[in-house]
């Protein structure tokens, strides 16, 4: 999986590249060792990892805690970004459709929960949170299909431009429509039901034991994080299942050669539409969870550059690979919070990082097996042409 290059290497670029080669070798070695482990071990390791993830807000691991912002809040944000990256990966990484308007789906999901659930919206009937979430997912799926139906006949750059337009349309509607209440936004987004079981005697932030009180409250971010983490894990599991099925193969085939796929019996339009709908649903879900946690959503959260940031997460991490896009999402969302002093330069730094990745590692940090080989080959064919 490494780029082999016979000519001697000197200079900063080559040192960096050599460093990256060694890192890539280590990664592929690790991957091999992991897949060589007995199944029971792998399951055990995975379960342990999941337990650690759930316990993360309460674990005092030195160095990872954010100093200036609430660590649990950051974890929640990271989980939301991972969910977005997993959804966008279906569209960009697997089906190969460049979507630059993903924030649109995020916004549709967030606004759906706000509008149908909040008492401050013009919709008269209020639905509880548990009803709002399926509505949000359904509406974003529908918006994905509505966007995809006319536009998925386009390919490549043309599709990217159209999706960019979609994101802008959603942003303009959010800013100007009376239903969304513009920049003033909608407050009072409902939270999930449920209480702490009465046996929980842990002391909450206000000095009273938690048992019997509402699970989702402004005082405690942990349940929101657990909720988001659960959503992430479920969605990853689902996407994984799809990847290893006829659907995943159809997506890859369309990405590789749409005409050949069609002639081999793949109804490409239908599968592209599915990719769009699934991607949209995950984006909508993440938006809905985001609005739930903030209990507020306004048009200022709908920004074009956020869409670009999402694509950056997927591309930097490694399009087409679940682990890769997770790493990408964590980098994009966690680092600016951990190193707050750089937060103002966030877009500058990610821009530079994107360029660096494009030069040194076009397949992303954790590439999918397939793309890794492809790009290594290309480097072999034209070593100067990077």
């Amino acid at each position: 999986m490494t780029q082999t290059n016979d000519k001697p290497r000197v200079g900063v670029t080559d040192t960096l590249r050599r460093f990256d080669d060694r890192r890539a070798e280590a990664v592929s070695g690790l991957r091999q060792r992991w897949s060589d482990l007995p199944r029971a071990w792998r399951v055990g390791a995975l379960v342990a990892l999941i337990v650690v993830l759930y316990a993360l807000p309460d674990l005092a691991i030195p160095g990872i805690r954010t100093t200036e912002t609430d660590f649990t809040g950051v974890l929640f944000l990271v989980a939301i970004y991972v969910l977005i990256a997993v959804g966008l990966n279906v569209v960009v990484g697997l089906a190969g459709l460049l979507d630059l308007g993903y924030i649109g789906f995020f916004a549709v999901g967030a606004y759906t929960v706000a509008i149908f659930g909040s008492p401050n919206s013009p919709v008269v009937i209020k639905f509880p949170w548990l009803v709002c979430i399926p509505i949000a997912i359904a509406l974003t799926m529908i918006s994905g299909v509505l966007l995809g139906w006319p536009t998925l006949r386009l390919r490549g750059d043309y599709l990217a431009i159209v999706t960019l337009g979609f994101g802008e349309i959603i942003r303009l509607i959010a800013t100007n429509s009376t239903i969304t209440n513009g920049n003033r936004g909608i407050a009072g987004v409902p939270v999930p039901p449920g209480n702490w079981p009465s046996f929980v005697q842990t002391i909450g932030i206000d000095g009273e034991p938690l048992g019997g009180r509402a699970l989702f409250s402004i005082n405690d971010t942990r349940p929101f994080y657990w909720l988001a983490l659960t959503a992430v894990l479920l969605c990853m599991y689902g996407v994984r299942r799809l990847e290893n099925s006829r659907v995943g193969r159809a997506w890859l085939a369309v990405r590789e050669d749409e005409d050949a796929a069609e002639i081999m019996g793949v109804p490409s339009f239908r599968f592209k539409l599915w990719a769009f709908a699934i991607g949209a649903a995950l984006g909508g879900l993440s938006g809905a969870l985001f609005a739930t946690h903030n209990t507020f959503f306004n048009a200022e959260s709908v920004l074009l550059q956020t869409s670009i940031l999402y694509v950056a997460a997927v591309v930097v991490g490694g399009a087409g690979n679940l682990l890769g896009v997770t790493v990408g999402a964590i980098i994009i969302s966690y680092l600016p919070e951990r190193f707050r002093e750089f937060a103002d330069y966030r877009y500058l730094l990610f821009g530079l990082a994107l360029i660096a990745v494009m030069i040194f590692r076009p397949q992303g940090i954790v590439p999918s097996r397939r793309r890794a080989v492809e790009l290594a080959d290309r480097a072999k064919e034209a070593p100067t042409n990077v």
Partner: protein
Amino acid sequence: MSEPQTTTPATGEPLLEVDNVTLRFGGVVALDGVDFTLYRGEILGLIGPNGAGKTTCFNAMTGVFRPTSGEMRFDGERVSGRKRYEITRMGIARTFQNIRLFPEMTALENVLVGADARHRTSVVGALFRLYRVPVKRHELTEVTAAGLAGAAQRLRRTGQRIFGLSRHVLEERAARQKAEALLRFVGVEGRLNELARNLSYGEQRRLEIARALATEPKLLCLDEPAAGFNPAEKEQLLQLIRKIRDTGVTVLLIEHDMRLVMGVTDRIVVLEFGRKIAEGSPAEVRDDPKVIAAYLGVPADAA
């Protein structure tokens, strides 16, 4: 030159009827009233000089282009106007003149995509696996391990007995077996998990045939399958094409290599400038003055 095979004349019933098909691109007439019939179980050669319209004819048959006029019937059903993947499911499969595999997928996955043409599992089926099919005894998970892992296997086995297996799992299993068998059939063994782009040229060509066969076609269209092959590889290909025909698949073959065409086909259709100029057994076609003229040109004094 090997003696042209005088195999069974075309006695089968018609499989594909190309009826007066014309295809125009603006002022260019790519196909001009082409007319021929393909019979079940035969190997038909489609030959002609460069630019005669052979590949265009393939494209019209597989739904890439829609004929301007005329009609094609496959197995009694109209072909023209259908979607490309529907035509594949009707039973027409093809390979490409310039190889068009899915380069970043493994050899096995390439063939699986072809096999998927006959599958019904879609997003919901793959996600939730609710559509259950009862399993036979030999299909149950075998208990191979001891201890905890063995207990897990036994539990799975019991689950399968009660709930059956999902259609997704059964389709995946069958497809995998089919794909492995097909790769063996065309001679790309032992490289199942190699990316298609890393296979040798000859293997890629054969992989394309395996992928096309995986769609379970009644008619297999090969577009210059021997291009770039050395004589030994051509001989292997010739055997392979016969083997394919012997499994009951009708073959339509575009090929420039006359030796191959004469050696393997039952009948030949000759195109020139989008028009059919001859049709018949290899021997008939070879001696047809019009065909000779098309390939070698007409002497100036004869014109």
